[in-house]
């Protein structure tokens, strides 16, 4: 009798194990099918002509150049703004204020609430504030500022954690040499925290690179047949261009969209690779 109960319990355990393995298998299958879907459709259309041409009404001539250049512009500015603002905020919260003080608590609460606001609502903010109120129009600058606000909470939290992990002893050693607070922050705290800051930031910036919804709100167009020359020019980005192609009825545009997705994923991968290289460089310097 007991033997039977024992066997039943262990059978249950085995069945549960199988069920859980099935859950994992689902994700692996989904990823495989997704990659298969994209590469089988897009690889044939991905060539030099595609990378160096402007969008076109005929699928054979259509290219992704203006979207690629637009993405590089937008992400370049977004990275610049969000790193300065995010790291600055983190330094202020961690180094200059008492965590129990009201100002710190309010900002902290704010940051965690902002992290939960849907991306498209940031798009509304960009449309009403940057595009209309400040008069930046549908420019690269409007898009970059909108994405900056979107990823700022993530970068700030990552930078805070990195700064918090800097050992106290390092700061005190620096002060004992007679440095000011600012010298200690720029000379000791930030270099030590840099690998952590970069790791968190690159994830956030990758997310910004894949965002389409807020930029559609801000006015990134699906059809831009020129290359932007400055931050006040109109623009499109890879995800918006892909969206534009995906929503067209002709089947050929689906293949072009797939080719565009391959380019987008390649850019995302290389951004991650650069981040890992940067991180390793700083890490080596600290060791």
């Amino acid at each position: 009798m007991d033997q039977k109960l024992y066997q039943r319990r262990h059978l249950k355990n085995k069945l549960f194990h199988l069920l859980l393995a099935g859950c994992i298998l689902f994700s692996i299958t989904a990823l495989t099918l997704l990659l298969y879907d994209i590469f089988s459709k897009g690889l044939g259309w991905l060539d030099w002509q595609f990378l160096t041409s402007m969008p076109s009404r005929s699928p054979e001539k259509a290219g992704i150049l203006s979207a690629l250049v637009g993405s590089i512009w937008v992400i370049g500015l977004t990275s610049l703004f969000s790193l300065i603002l995010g790291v600055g905020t983190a330094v202020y919260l961690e180094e200059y204020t008492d965590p129990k003080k009201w100002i710190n608590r309010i900002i902290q609460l704010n940051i965690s609430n902002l992290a939960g606001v849907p991306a498209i609502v940031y798009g509304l903010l960009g449309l009403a504030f940057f595009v209309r109120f400040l008069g930046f129009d549908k420019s690269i600058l409007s898009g970059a500022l909108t994405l900056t606000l979107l990823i700022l909470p993530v970068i700030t939290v990552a930078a805070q954690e990195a700064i918090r992990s800097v050992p106290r002893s390092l700061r005190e050693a620096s002060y004992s040499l007679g440095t000011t607070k600012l010298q200690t922050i720029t000379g000791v705290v930030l270099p030590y925290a840099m690998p952590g800051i970069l790791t968190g930031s690159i994830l956030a910036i990758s997310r910004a690179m894949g965002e389409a919804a807020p930029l559609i709100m801000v006015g990134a167009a699906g059809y831009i047949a020129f290359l932007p020359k400055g931050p006040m020019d109109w623009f499109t980005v890879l995800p918006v261009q892909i969206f534009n192609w995906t929503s067209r009825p002709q089947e050929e545009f689906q293949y072009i969209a797939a080719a565009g997705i391959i380019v987008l994923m390649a850019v995302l991968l290389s951004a991650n690779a650069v981040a890992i290289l940067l991180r390793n460089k700083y890490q080596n310097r600290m060791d």
Partner: protein
Amino acid sequence: MSSKKYEIQKLHRAEFIVEKGLMLFAAVSVLTTAIIVFILFEETIVFFGEVPLWDFFTGTQWTPTLQPRSFGIIPLVVGTLMIALGSSIIALPLGLGSAIYLSEYAHKKVRKVVKPILEVLAGIPSIVYGFFALTFITPILQMILPQTQVFNALSASIAVGIMTLPMVASMSEDAMMAVPDSIRQGAYALGSTRFEVAVKVTIPAAMSSIGAAFVLAISRAIGETMIVAIAAGQSPVLTLNPLNSIQTMTGFMVNISMGDIQQGTIEFKTLFAVGTVLFFMTLIMNLIARAIIKKNREVY
């Protein structure tokens, strides 16, 4: 000597300027919240000057761009909730299952392979999932159920589910990993199987964080935009059939932004009114998630 003193004064002045400057940086986050709330309210209040509140929240006809105009948001809300429910059916059980597997069953080597796969899935842009839904999931659904429309809620729900699954898995796994091993060892010492430890010990101990992960995943599905804009359709018709074309709140917002809308028009105001409803729906979900964590925090 006096030039040294001057230099020290200069250093201190720099300190002061930097501190005040950083304070301005920190103020940006508070300012962002203020501006979001302000712009949403500004346009929404004007909107309700033209459209009665009651009609907006109880109407079942949504034709803001066609004559006769009608502003009943219920079809959009129902469409949004259908996507949230459909994606939850996939993301919550499979995400939790993956988390249990990773924290209770998986060998270290297996974890090393599976974790990056989930991270890759979490890092794929939503536009890519939208493409996948339209060009892969929908054709398969049409093969199985021929009455499936080209744009349908089910296909988008599945894609949103796949996208939110890694988030549920990683948050639940973190929660289960935080349960002290001594509690598990105690259960094993009593002769429990892994199944019994997981279901009767680990999950109950991590329940509050798992609950919060679930609520956040639903909130994310409500705000998800590109997948539904591509795959769910643009027909704001009140239906509960997941094989039909629908429209969500976010889908409507993208759709109306594709045209060049002028400030001051009713379309422009409608955009912000829908955005306000979306903002409050996700805000409430996020507050619930935080309350769950705060109330049930287990201290070991």
